[in-house]
């Protein structure tokens, strides 16, 4: 097991923790924060899988996923309703 494998397993555990928080709630804002962390976990796993198997296109995907995760956080604001 290389250090990269250990890192992938740890980030996958964080991903499962955020899925648990999305399922358990209790409020919509908690789910939005957990979804934010879930997109960060996906970016992290993408980076580490690219480094582990030495894929060439990894950092293109990372760049796009970073931007998409910010857009996801901004649009998650609409989940909660209420005043703007």
């Amino acid at each position, binding site marked *: 097991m290389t*250090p*990269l494998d*250990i*890192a992938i397993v*740890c*980030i996958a*555990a*964080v991903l499962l*923790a*955020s899925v*648990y*928080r999305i399922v358990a709630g209790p*409020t*919509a*804002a*908690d789910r*939005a*924060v*957990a979804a*934010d*962390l879930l997109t*960060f*976990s996906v*970016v*992290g796993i993408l*980076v*580490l899988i*690219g*480094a582990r198997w*030495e894929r060439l296109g*990894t*950092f*293109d995907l*990372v*760049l796009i996923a*970073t*931007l998409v*995760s*910010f857009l*996801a*956080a*901004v649009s*998650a*604001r609409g989940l*909660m*309703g*209420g*005043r*703007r």
Partner: protein
Amino acid sequence: MSVLTVIAYVLILAGVVVFAGAGVGLLKFRDTYMRASAVGTAAGLGIALVTIGAVLTMPTTANLVKAAVAVVLQLATAAVGSTIIARAAVNSGHAFAPGTSLIDLDEADAKLAGMPLTEESGPRPSGETSEGSSV
């Protein structure tokens, strides 16, 4: 194993530890605002460290440029994203944990409403949420 690889692994593992802190905070903290704080700071820094470490394992020029842009974007947007979520939570009336001091929030509300501050603007009872103008 070269020196660069060792540095890369140390950075990746440090980033994973910081990132795991965000996961623990998301599970253990008591209300939405503490969780948003943990996710915004720890996850942004953690992913930035992991990205720097990963690019050191295959340091071509193209990879270095892309990773530098990704790290800058990550550090700039992670905290902004979770702050946007937390502010939307305040505006839609999500409860604060008992014991949270709301003095700054009261001051911001009073400033927006154009009203002078009173001496009595202490922390409100728990569970009560922000009334009046939007923040």
